[in-house]
C-alpha cells in the first residue's frame, strides 16, 4: 500500500512539474511544408567560432540558393527549405568547404555543425573546395513533436497502401478505426489533414476528405503529439502532406499497379447463427495507371509538377443464401465443434462494387528572388461508385446504390524573407471543396425502407428472392430436407427503400499568415506571430426514401406484450410497426388551438390531415419531410504567438499560446424565423449563432535539450492544450431544423374478429402498397418526437479540448539510425456533447460540469415573466393567468425549464478519456538504399468518451452522439475503450542490393503485431435502440486475439541511363494469409435492458428485461445467438504487381 501511495504521489508530481515550467513558457516552429537548418561553424585552426562565414544551402528541391552569414558563436540559421537532400557550402577566409547529404524534412529542424580548417587551405589553389564527409544528424532539434515522416523511399519500397490516407497508420502506436488511422487514443475523426498548407479535413464529421496517391507526394509528416501553437483544431494527430514540386531538370515517373482477383486468397466465412444470408467480399481486380512529371518553366525561377492517376477497383460482393442442417432430424440445427451452425448453400448472387477514382495534381513553384517565393497547387480525387449497401439482408436487386464522392483543393502560398533572413512572412490561402452524392439506382429503392425486426423464414420473401432460387428454404415444401427446423431463418430483413441518403457539399475557405522574427537576446529567439481564419460550409440535403422508415416489431416488443401462448411467434398476432419520419414544422398552433389541446377533450383537438402530427411540445403542427435541407456555416479564427528560445546551442525552450474561436451558425433557412415552441404559447426567434466557443486558449510549453551538444540526441518534454474543431454535422443535425417522430402503428394488434379492426393496420410483406396502407391505419400513437428543430446551447459552454504531456528522448545510436523513447499522457478535461432535457429539448453543453450560476441567471430571467403573468402574486401561474397572457407564461415555462435542465447537467457522468503510452522507436534516415521504421507501443486507453464517434455503434455524429443524452445511457461506459491496443509493434524496412550494371534488387517488408480489441456487453435501450446500453462495464468482455500480418515487397530495377530506371515489382499483402478475428459481436441481447452497474458475468445471468412500455419484467434477457462470435476478420492474402519508369 505504501509503495502504491508513493507511486501515486510521483504521478501527481508530474502536473506540478509542468506547472513550474509555465514560468518559462515558449515555442517555435517552422512552416508546415518546409524544414529548416541551423548549426555552428567552427574553425579548427583557431579553435574558435567562425564568425562571418557564408553558409549556402543548395538542393535540387530548392529554387536558387539560400544564404546565411554566421553570427556570434558561429551560428547560422536557414529557414523555409523545401524537403530534400541539401549541400552546404561554407565560404570562410578565402577557403571553400562543402558538406553534402544534409536531409531536410518537413516541419523539422536539422542541426548541422561544421568544423572547417582555415589552416588546411594553406598552399592550395584559391577556389579549391574542401569536401567534408559525414551526414547531418537526424534528430529534430527544433521541436518536441512526436510522429513519423513518410517519404517516397518508404512508399516505393515498403508494401503499403496506394495513398497517404492508408500509409499514415505506419506511425508508432497508430491503429485503424472505422474512419481511418487514429493516434494516441483519439479517434480518427479528431485528426486534421493538411495538404499544401491548407486544412482539407472534411467539414462534415472530421474525416479524411482529400486523398492523393504516393507518387504525387514529396513527404507526409504525421504529427501525433507535442506540436506547437501554429497547429490547432485537432485533438488527434496532424497529417501534413507536401506534394512534389518541379526542379531545374525534368523528372517524373510512369507507373502501373495491378491486383488480380485470382490471386486473392479465399476469405474464411464468417458464420452467423440465425442468418441465412451470408456475404463474401473478394477483389475482382484493381489497377492504377498514372504518371507525374516536373520540371522547369524558367530555370531557378518557375517550376511545375503535374500528375494524373486513375484508380479502378472492382470488388465482387457475393450474397449467399444458406440453409441450416438437421441431419438427425432432432429439431435442433447441427453445429460444428465450436457451436457454429453447419450450413448448405442454397443460392449465390454476385454484386459488383464499381469504384473509379481520378487523382490529379498540378503545382507551380516560383522564386521571384532568393527572398520571395510562391507556389500554387491544385489537387483532387473525384470518385464515382456503385456500391452495394453494407446491409445485404435485403433483395439483391435493391442493394446497390450510387455514391459519388471526392474533393478538390486549391492552395496558394507566398513566403518573403526580409532583414537578411531574420524576418519572414508566410501567407497561405486555400479553398477546399468536398462532396458526396448518394442516390438510388432503381425506383424500388426510392420507397420507404421496410424492416422486419425479428427472425422469420427467408421464404416469406420468396417473391423478392426468387421462388426457384430459394426453394430449399420453404419449410414444409417439397424440397424440405429438414422438416423439424426453420431452414432459412433471417433477422432484420429489409426491403424497398434505402433509408437516409445524402447529397452534400463541404467546403472551406481558409487563409493563414505568420510573421517570424529572429532576435538575439540571452541566446537566440525565434518569435512567431500568426493567425488563420476559416469559413466552412456544410450544405446538406438528407433524403429519406419514401419519407419514412418502417419497422415491424416482434411480438415481445409490442406495447401490449401480446405474444401468443406458443412463445414469440410474431405471426400469431397482427404485427405492430414503428414508423420513423422526418418532420418539418408546417405551422404554429394558434392560442385557441393550444388551449383546446390542453383541455383534455380530444374532440376539441385540431383536425390533422394524413401525415400531420402535433410537434414541438404541443405548439406546432408538423408534417413529413422527405428532404431535410440545411445549409450551414462555421467560422473559425485563431491567433498565436510563440517563441523558440535557444538559450544555449543545445538547449531550446519553446513557448507558445494559441487563441481560437469557433462560431457555428444555424441553418440559413431558420435564421430570422421563430422556433417551434418547447413550451406551448411562446416562440423564440432562432438565434443566428448555434454556438459560439470563445476564449479557447491553448498554451503550449516544451523544451529540447541535446546532451551530446552535436545534434545527435535530445531529451524533450511538452505540455499543451489542444482544442477540437467542431465538425459541422452538429450544425446540420442539431441546428438544421431536424425533427423526427417515432410512432407505434397498430399497437392494438386487433384481429379481424375484434371491433374496430382495420385491414390497413394489419399489413405484412406482400401487402400491396404497404407503406400507403399503413398511412391509412388510424391506430397510431406517437411514441417520441426527437428534437425541436434546433438545440439550445447552455450559456458558458466550453470548447472540447485535450491536454497532453510528453516526455521523451532520442539518440542517434549509429549514423543515420536513431532510437527513441517517449511517454505520452493525454486526457480530455472538457467534452462538448448534447443531453436530453425533460421537455424533450436537446441541449448542447459540457455534461458533468456545473452550470448552476447560469441556471440562476435563467431563473432570474424567468422570474421577470412570472411577475408579469402572476397577477395575484401567489408565485404560480393559474390557468386563467396563463390564458390571459399565454406568450409570457410560455416564456416563463421555457426559461424555468431550461434553468432546471441547466442545473441537472452536473448530475451526468463527466466524459473523460485517458491515454497513457510508452513508445520505443527506431528510425533510420530514409535513403535510397535502405530504411528501418520500427516501433513498439505499450498503451492504455480508458474512459467513457471514445471521441467523435462511438466505435461500438459507429455513430459518427461528432459532439451529438447518444452516449450522454440520458444519465442511464452513460452508466458503465467508463472502461477500456475499444481503440485500446495495449501492445502494438510495427516494423517497416527495405534493403536495396545494387548489382551495378545488372540492376538493383529491392526487398522490403512490413510486419504488424497488435493486441486485440477490448469488447463490451451491449444491450438495447428502450428509447435509443440497439447497443446503446453497456450492460457490464465497458471493455470487460473478453479481449480479441492478438493479430499479426506480414507484407512483403520485391522489386527489380534496371538503370536505362543516368536518372532513368525501369522497375518491376510485386507486393504480397498478408503473406501468410492470417485471417484472425478483428472484431466480434458485442450485442448481448436485443431485448430492452438497463445497465448492471459494476456488474460481472454472474450478475448478467440475472439481468431482467423491460417490456414494450419500458416496465421491468421478471424474465431474463434473451441472449443473442451470435454474442461473442467473430464478426470481422483480417483481409485475406492478395498480390499486387507493378511497373515503374522513373526519369
Amino acid at each position, binding site marked *: 500500500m505504501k509503495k502504491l501511495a508513493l507511486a501515486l504521489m*510521483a*504521478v501527481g508530481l508530474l502536473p506540478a512539474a509542468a506547472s513550474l515550467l509555465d514560468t518559462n513558457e515558449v515555442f517555435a516552429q517552422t512552416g508546415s511544408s518546409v524544414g529548416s537548418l541551423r548549426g555552428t561553424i567552427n574553425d579548427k585552426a583557431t579553435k574558435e567560432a567562425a564568425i562571418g562565414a557564408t553558409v549556402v544551402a543548395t538542393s535540387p528541391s530548392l529554387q536558387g540558393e539560400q544564404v546565411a552569414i554566421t553570427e556570434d558563436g558561429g551560428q547560422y540559421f536557414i529557414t523555409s527549405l523545401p524537403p530534400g537532400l541539401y549541400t552546404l557550402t561554407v565560404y570562410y577566409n578565402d577557403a571553400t568547404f562543402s558538406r553534402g547529404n544534409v536531409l531536410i524534412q518537413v516541419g523539422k529542424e536539422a542541426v548541422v555543425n561544421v568544423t572547417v580548417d582555415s589552416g588546411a587551405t594553406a598552399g592550395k589553389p584559391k577556389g579549391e573546395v574542401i569536401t567534408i564527409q559525414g551526414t547531418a544528424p537526424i534528430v529534430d532539434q527544433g521541436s518536441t513533436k512526436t510522429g513519423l515522416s513518410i517519404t517516397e523511399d518508404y512508399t516505393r519500397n515498403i508494401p503499403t497502401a496506394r495513398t497517404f490516407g492508408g500509409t499514415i497508420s505506419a506511425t508508432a502506436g497508430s491503429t485503424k478505426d472505422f474512419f481511418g488511422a487514429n493516434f494516441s487514443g483519439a479517434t480518427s475523426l479528431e485528426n486534421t489533414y493538411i495538404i499544401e498548407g491548407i486544412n482539407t479535413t472534411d467539414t462534415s464529421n472530421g474525416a479524411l476528405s482529400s486523398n492523393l496517391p504516393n507518387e504525387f507526394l514529396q513527404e507526409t509528416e504525421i504529427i501525433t503529439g507535442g506540436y506547437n501553437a501554429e497547429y490547432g483544431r485537432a485533438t488527434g494527430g496532424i497529417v501534413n502532406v507536401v506534394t512534389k514540386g518541379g526542379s531545374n531538370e525534368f523528372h517524373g515517373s510512369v507507373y502501373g499497379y495491378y491486383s488480380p482477383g485470382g490471386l486473392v486468397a479465399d476469405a474464411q466465412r464468417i458464420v452467423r447463427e440465425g442468418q441465412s444470408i451470408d456475404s463474401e467480399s473478394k477483389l475482382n481486380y484493381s489497377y492504377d495507371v498514372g504518371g507525374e512529371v516536373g520540371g522547369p518553366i524558367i530555370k531557378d525561377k518557375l517550376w511545375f509538377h503535374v500528375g494524373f492517376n486513375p484508380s479502378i477497383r472492382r470488388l465482387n460482393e457475393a450474397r449467399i443464401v444458406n440453409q441450416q442442417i438437421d441431419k438427425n432430424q432432432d429439431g435442433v440445427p447441427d453445429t460444428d465443434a465450436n457451436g457454429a451452425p453447419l450450413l448448405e448453400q442454397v443460392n449465390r448472387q454476385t454484386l459488383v462494387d464499381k469504384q473509379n477514382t481520378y487523382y490529379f495534381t498540378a503545382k507551380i513553384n516560383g522564386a521571384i528572388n532568393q527572398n520571395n517565393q510562391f507556389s500554387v497547387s491544385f489537387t483532387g480525387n473525384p470518385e464515382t461508385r456503385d456500391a452495394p449497401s453494407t446491409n445485404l439482408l435485403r433483395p439483391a436487386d435493391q442493394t446497390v446504390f450510387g455514391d459519388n464522392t471526392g474533393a478538390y483543393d486549391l492552395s496558394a502560398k507566398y513566403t518573403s524573407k526580409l532583414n537578411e533572413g531574420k524576418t519572414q512572412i508566410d501567407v497561405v490561402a486555400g479553398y477546399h471543396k468536398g462532396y458526396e452524392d448518394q442516390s438510388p439506382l432503381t425506383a424500388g429503392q426510392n420507397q420507404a425502407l421496410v424492416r422486419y425486426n425479428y427472425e422469420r423464414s427467408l421464404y416469406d420473401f420468396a417473391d423478392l428472392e426468387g421462388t426457384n432460387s430459394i426453394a430449399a428454404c420453404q419449410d414444409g415444401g417439397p424440397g424440405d430436407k429438414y422438416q423439424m427446423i426453420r431452414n432459412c431463418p433471417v433477422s432484420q430483413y429489409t426491403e424497398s427503400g434505402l433509408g437516409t441518403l445524402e447529397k452534400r457539399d463541404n467546403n472551406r475557405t481558409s487563409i493563414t499568415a505568420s510573421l517570424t522574427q529572429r532576435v538575439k537576446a540571452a541566446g537566440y529567439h525565434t518569435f512567431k506571430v500568426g493567425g488563420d481564419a476559416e469559413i466552412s460550409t456544410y450544405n446538406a440535403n438528407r433524403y429519406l426514401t419514401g419519407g419514412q422508415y418502417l419497422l415491424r416489431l416482434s411480438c415481445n416488443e409490442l406495447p401490449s406484450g401480446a405474444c401468443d*401462448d*406458443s*412463445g*414469440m411467434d410474431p405471426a400469431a398476432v397482427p404485427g405492430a410497426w414503428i414508423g420513423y419520419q422526418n418532420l418539418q414544422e408546417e405551422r404554429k398552433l394558434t392560442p385557441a388551438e393550444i388551449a383546446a389541446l390542453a383541455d383534455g377533450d380530444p374532440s376539441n383537438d385540431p383536425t390533422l390531415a394524413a401525415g400531420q402530427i402535433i410537434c414541438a411540445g404541443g405548439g406546432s403542427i408538423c408534417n413529413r419531410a422527405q428532404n431535410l435541407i440545411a445549409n450551414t456555416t462555421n467560422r473559425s479564427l485563431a491567433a498565436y504567438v510563440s517563441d523558440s528560445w535557444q538559450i544555449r546551442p543545445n538547449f531550446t525552450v519553446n513557448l507558445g499560446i494559441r487563441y481560437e474561436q469557433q462560431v457555428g451558425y444555424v441553418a440559413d433557412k431558420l435564421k430570422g424565423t421563430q422556433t417551434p415552441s418547447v413550451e406551448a404559447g411562446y416562440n423564440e426567434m432562432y438565434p443566428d449563432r448555434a454556438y459560439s466557443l470563445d476564449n479557447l486558449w491553448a498554451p503550449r510549453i516544451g523544451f529540447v535539450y541535446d*546532451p*551530446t551538444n552535436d545534434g*545527435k*540526441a535530445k*531529451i524533450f518534454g511538452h505540455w499543451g492544450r489542444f482544442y477540437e474543431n467542431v465538425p459541422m454535422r452538429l450544425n446540420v443535425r442539431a441546428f438544421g431544423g431536424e425533427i423526427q417522430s417515432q410512432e407505434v402503428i397498430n399497437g392494438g394488434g386487433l384481429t379481424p374478429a375484434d371491433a374496430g379492426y382495420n385491414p390497413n393496420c394489419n399489413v405484412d410483406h406482400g401487402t400491396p402498397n404497404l407503406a400507403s396502407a399503413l398511412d391509412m391505419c388510424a391506430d397510431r400513437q406517437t411514441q417520441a418526437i426527437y428534437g425541436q428543430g434546433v438545440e439550445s446551447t447552455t450559456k458558458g459552454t466550453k470548447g472540447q479540448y485535450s491536454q497532453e504531456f510528453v*516526455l*521523451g*528522448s532520442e*539518440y542517434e545510436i549509429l549514423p543515420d539510425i536513431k532510437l527513441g*523513447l517517449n*511517454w505520452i499522457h493525454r486526457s480530455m478535461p472538457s467534452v462538448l456533447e448534447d443531453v*436530453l432535457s*425533460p421537455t424533450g429539448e436537446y441541449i448542447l453543453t459540457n455534461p*458533468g460540469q456545473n452550470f448552476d450560476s447560469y441556471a440562476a441567471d435563467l431563473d432570474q430571467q424567468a422570474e421577470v415573466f412570472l411577475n408579469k403573468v402572476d397577477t395575484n402574486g401567489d408565485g404560480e401561474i393559474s390557468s386563467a393567468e396563463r390564458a390571459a397572457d399565454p406568450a409570457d407564461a410560455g416564456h416563463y415555462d421555457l426559461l424555468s425549464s431550461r434553468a432546471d435542465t441547466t442545473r*441537472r447537467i452536473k*448530475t*451526468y*457522468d463527466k466524459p*473523460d478519456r485517458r491515454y*497513457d*503510452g*510508452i513508445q520505443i522507436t527506431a528510425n533510420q534516415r530514409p535513403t535510397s538504399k535502405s530504411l528501418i521504421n520500427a516501433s513498439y507501443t*505499450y498503451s492504455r486507453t*480508458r474512459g467513457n468518451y471514445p471521441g467523435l464517434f462511438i466505435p461500438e455503434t459507429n455513430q459518427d455524429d461528432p459532439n451529438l452522439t447518444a452516449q450522454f443524452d440520458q*444519465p442511464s445511457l*452513460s*452508466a*458503465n461506459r*467508463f*472502461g477500456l475503450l475499444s481503440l485500446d491496443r495495449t501492445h502494438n509493434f510495427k516494423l517497416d524496412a527495405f534493403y536495396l542490393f545494387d548489382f551495378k550494371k545488372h540492376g538493383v534488387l529491392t526487398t522490403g517488408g512490413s510486419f504488424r503485431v497488435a493486441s486485440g480489441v477490448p469488447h463490451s456487453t451491449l444491450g438495447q435501450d*428502450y*428509447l435509443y435502440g440497439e447497443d446503446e446500453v453497456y450492460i457490464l462495464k465497458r471493455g470487460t468482455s473478453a479481449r480479441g486475439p492478438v493479430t499479426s500480418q506480414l507484407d512483403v515487397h520485391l522489386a527489380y530495377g534496371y538503370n536505362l541511363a543516368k536518372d532513368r530506371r525501369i522497375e518491376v515489382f510485386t507486393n504480397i499483402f498478408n503473406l501468410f494469409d492470417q485471417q484472425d478475428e478483428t472484431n466480434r459481436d458485442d450485442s448481448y441481447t436485443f431485448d430492452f*435492458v*438497463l*445497465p*448492471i*452497474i*459494476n*456488474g460481472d458475468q454472474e*450478475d448478467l*445471468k*440475472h*439481468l*431482467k428485461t*423491460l417490456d414494450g*412500455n*419500458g*416496465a*421491468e419484467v*421478471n*424474465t*431474463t434477457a*434473451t*441472449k443473442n445467438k451470435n454474442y461473442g462470435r467473430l464478426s470481422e476478420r483480417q483481409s485475406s492474402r492478395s498480390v499486387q504487381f507493378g511497373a515503374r519508369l522513373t526519369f
Partner: protein
Amino acid sequence: MIETHHRGRAQAFCFATAAVALLSACSDPTVKSDLRPDGPPEVLTVMVMNDAENLYLESATFCKLDDDKRPTEVFTSNGGLTEVCPLDDPSAPATEVKDAVPTAWYVRIVFDELLNPSIEDLVPDTDASGDPTGTYTGHIVDTHPVELKCGGVAVDYDGYYSPAGNYQTWPVGPSLVIVPDDPTAIATGTECTVTINDVVKDKSGEQVPADQRGTNGEYKFKIAPLALLSTAPGTVTDPAAAEEVVPESPVTFTFNDVVDPASFTTADIKMFKGVAADCTGGTQVPDASVEIFQALNDDGDVDDPMSIQIADGSAAGAAVDPADPADMGLRLDETEMYRIDLTPTASVSDAAGGMTMLDFGDDGDMPPKPFILCFSTSAAQ
C-alpha cells in the same frame, strides 16, 4: 558516439519516463453513475407500486436521508421525469405510501451495491411444447430475503432480484422485488411492513447493517382503501348529459380491488325508474327486484371480480339469470329513464375483508359529490 556520461543521463531519464508511465495506468476513477461496492449494502429507497392507472410508476415509502446515491429526479422510459425521493432537500424523508394498488402491489428494495446474486433462483422458461426458451424467471421464495407482514400477519411472497433495476432506480439499480402471492388477499387499507433478513448480503458477504433496515427495523406502507373507480354508465354532473345505454347491459360498479359481492346489497343502493329528465323523482324499483350480482364469462367464472353489476329484475323481458351471458333477457327496461341512489350507509367490502363507506366524501375523486347516476335506456338491440 555519445559520451558515456551523456548516455548514462539519457538512460536514467528513459527509465524514469518508463516507470512513471507504467504507474500512471493503474486505476479508473469513480464516476457519478458508479455503485458503492465498498462497505455493507445499504438500502437507498423502498418503493411500492401505487400507480393504479398504468401499473408503471412506483412511489418511495422510504428514502435514506442525506445520501447522494438515492434516486431523486429520474428519467422514465417514456422520456418524462418523476421524483422518487425529494429532490430539493436531501434530508427529507419519503412520504409513506398509503395507496398501494390492492390488486397489483409489490415492494422494491433498492440497494447501493450489487447483492450476491444467489439471493435469486433462476428457473428456465419453457414454451408451449415444454422446450426451454433460453430465458429464465427469477424466484426468491426459497431464499426468503425479507419478512413481509400485513396487519401483523406474515404474507407469502415470491419475487426476483433485479441487478439493473428499472428506470426509477437510477442512478443505482440493484433491487429486490417482493411480490405477494395474492395481493388481493390483503384487505384494503391494511398496513404492511417489510423486514430485511440476514440472508441479504453483498458480493463480499456483508449484511445490511441493523441500523440501515428502516425505522425500527422495518419499512411501512399501506394498501389503498377500497374505492369505487367507475360506473357504467358514468355518473354525471349535469342531468342533461345523462348517457343512453342498451337495456341488455346491466349497470356496473367497478372498484379498485376484488369485492365481496355479498357486501353490496339493496341496503346500499336504491334504484328508480320513470325518472324525470332532470334526474329527479321516479318510482323506486322494489328491493326484491333489484338484482345485484357479478357477471359470469363464457366459462362460468366471474368475469371481473372487481366489478358488481346491478339489474332491474322487474323489467319487461328481464333475464332469468342476469349473471349468465347466455341469458339473452334484458337487464333494464327499454326506453326508460333510471336513477340509482346510494343510501347514507352504503358500504362495500373487499374479498379480504377490507371495507369502505361509499359516502363519496371530499377525499373521493370518483365520483364527485353529489353522486348522480342517472341514465336512459334505448330500445332493445
